[in-house]
């Protein structure tokens, strides 16, 4: 079979050396019971934060809005359990900042908010794309793959752009994570329903489901579920990191390259994760907003598991549910080993984008000592974006942001392939991230100055 793949770079040995998926890939998703309290962060998406709209002492039901978005690029936040709001205060967030959380005392009844409305397919057929989009917005759906970009924003295509391809991300190219895999196996019908709903909103010519060839069962399940749905097609891709990156996925499935610095819509595509599709189906057909998700709890825990967990459950509760830590644990990561964010405290709470909780022991989590750059060019070969990571990192270390920008630092997707292959174990992505932050700051300052000058 001719396997699809993106055109350049990437790392393939990753999957043989650090597979890790075997820990959990055969384990069905189990429900993780919510604890006595859940603490739901008001920041759960890329873009604007939410404003808490409940008061202490107020009774809430599952799916009731507790945070309203402060801007277009944001999605509301809902209660994931029923019970009484006992506090609204700042707690440590997975992004490392102190941010407002709404703390709800779980009454254990999971009483569903009566305002929620489920739709039958007949009712759906009568809905306009805008009305469906509104349901997605109201359900607080954000990209479940980890980037947490609000889905309704992706679905509002500017009038001057035409989207003819809906690309569904089932690649799950991060080692260790199996949440999307289990979802595709166990809830393939939900994913397909979500795709049908998204197709009604976007009316694309085709919906392509991209899955890597190391997940043959998921491919089969999705092909089975998608049978008879016009326009839906499963694309089998070669297993290569970062296949699940938006731009690489689009290239693998459609052969199109998103122009540098532009969005997928500029290539006529919208990319949605399989988890997001299932969430859309939940929201429209069952009326349930995004209040839970599937997360892989794996690595150095006694019983690695795939769990369905309510938003606002703490990492420590999830880890206890999986038998607790095993051995000499060194790193706690929200997400996968390639792009996940390390946590220094396991008291943080699961958000809509927590695709995995990975615990690494001392053997894995060594922070290698850097040696000098050999100039071997392995990072240049590995970069899926066609950049010269060694140069960007070099200029970043010299704090020369102009040269870093000249070497296209802003095109970096931070996939980590360069750091992965570096024989000198240099922290290349770290340097590039710093450069990106500084270049962004300089650009904003320039824009602000121009605005001032214009007045």
């Amino acid at each position: 079979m001719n396997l699809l793949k993106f055109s350049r770079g990437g790392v393939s040995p990753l999957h043989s050396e650090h597979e890790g998926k075997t820990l959990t890939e055969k384990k069905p998703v189990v429900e993780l019971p919510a604890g006595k309290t859940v603490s739901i962060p008001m920041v759960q998406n890329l873009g604007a934060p939410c404003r808490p709209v409940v008061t202490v002492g107020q009774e809430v039901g599952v799916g009731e809005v507790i945070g309203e978005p402060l801007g277009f690029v944001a999605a509301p936040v809902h209660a994931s359990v029923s019970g009484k709001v006992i506090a609204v205060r700042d707690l440590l967030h997975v992004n490392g900042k102190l941010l407002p959380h709404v703390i709800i005392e779980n009454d254990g009844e999971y009483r569903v908010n009566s305002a929620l409305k489920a739709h039958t397919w007949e009712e759906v057929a009568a809905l306009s794309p805008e009305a469906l989009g509104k349901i997605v917005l109201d359900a607080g759906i954000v990209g479940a793959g980890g980037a947490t970009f609000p889905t309704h924003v992706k679905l509002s295509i500017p009038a001057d752009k035409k989207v003819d391809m809906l690309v569904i991300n089932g690649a799950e190219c991060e080692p260790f994570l199996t949440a999307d895999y289990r979802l595709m196996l166990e809830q393939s019908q939900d994913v397909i329903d979500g795709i049908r709903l998204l197709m009604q909103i976007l009316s694309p010519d085709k919906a392509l489901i991209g899955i890597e060839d190391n997940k043959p069962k998921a491919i089969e399940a999705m092909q089975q579920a998608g049978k008879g749905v016009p326009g839906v097609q499963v694309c089998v891709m070669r297993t290569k990191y970062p296949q699940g990156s938006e731009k690489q996925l689009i290239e693998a499935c459609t052969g199109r390259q998103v122009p540098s610095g532009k969005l997928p819509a500029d290539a006529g595509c919208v990319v949605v994760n399989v988890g997001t599709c299932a969430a859309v189906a939940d929201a429209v057909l069952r009326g349930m907003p995004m209040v839970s998700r599937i997360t892989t709890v794996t690595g150095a825990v006694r019983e690695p598991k795939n769990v369905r967990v309510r938003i606002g459950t703490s990492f420590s509760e999830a880890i206890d549910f999986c038998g607790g830590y095993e051995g000499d644990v060194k790193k706690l990561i929200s997400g996968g080993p390639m792009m996940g964010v390390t946590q220094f405290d396991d008291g943080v709470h699961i958000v809509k984008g927590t695709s995995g909780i990975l615990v690494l022991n001392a053997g894995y989590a060594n922070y290698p000592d850097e040696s000098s750059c050999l100039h071997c060019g392995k990072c240049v070969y590995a970069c899926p974006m066609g950049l010269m990571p060694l140069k960007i990192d070099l200029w970043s270390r010299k704090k020369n942001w102009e040269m870093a920008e000249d070497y296209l630092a802003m095109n970096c997707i931070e996939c980590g392939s360069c750091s992965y292959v570096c024989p000198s174990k240099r922290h290349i992505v770290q340097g590039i991230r710093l450069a990106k932050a500084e270049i962004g700051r300089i650009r904003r300052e320039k824009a602000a100055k121009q605005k001032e000058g214009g007045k």
Partner: protein
Amino acid sequence: MEQAKFVASSSPHVRGRQTVQSIMLDVCIALLPSALFALYRFGAYSWAVLFSCVAGSMITEWACNKLMKKPNSLKDLSAVVTGLMLGMCCPPTVPLWLPFVGGVFAIGIVKMPFGGLGHNFLNPALAARAFLLASWPSMMTTWSNAVDAVSGATPLEAYKLGQPAGYSDLLFGHVDGSIGEVCKIALLVGAAYLIIRKVINLNTPVGFVVGVAGFAWIFGGYGGLFTGDPLYALLSGGALMGAFFMCNDYTTSPCTPAGQFLMGLLAGILTGVIRRFGAYVEGVTYAILFLNVCTPLIDRYIRPKAFGEGKAK
């Protein structure tokens, strides 16, 4: 407090297995077939030459680190590789102090003063060879054959004299030449190992081979254009050693695919120019050294095509 034991760092949290040390070890292993052949062809003395080179390199690296108050870098094995490479391109008959001096020069002058591994702008082994060749030219070009005691011309000299050696003699090393360069089969086995281990890629070597063979074919013959013998050019002298072990030295060659090919190609052509028109019969060393100097320039102007650039729909 249990939480305090978590380490926070930037992603990625897993790294590949290849390290500087593993790469250098692979290069040593790749040079082993050639070294073993030298043992068979030139006797134990050739290994003494190799060891002298390696000793010179390692002692100098250790001393430089001490002097500059830097951590000891011997365990990355790069000094061993430099020494071995230099030894491989010495004649098998040199007095033992000569390769030692070469090793000292390679590390003490070419590598460490510029900052050590990754910072030198010339290939240390080749620069040291050029130094030895300029300082002790007769010792560095005496190829008397230690085993069958026949002193003769190297294949390149023979070609210039109009009495070329046979291909199989070239391939299997029944000719005179430097310790590690005579047996092309051994070199190719080593190169294949490096390719399989993903230590080197083929861009620079292919460029170099095309450059050498192309130039030799077009201009290398003495009967006019296109009468040269490209295969002979490749199988004689240090062409294959240069292509697979010298030209693609990480630090002193470009880091982009196109740049690497260009560097190899130019070095190959320049090798041909020196061989054909220069006073020396062999040009690999000087050609590669010249292109080493050009590497920053190549890297500056040849960049890979970024994803999404110029292919806008």
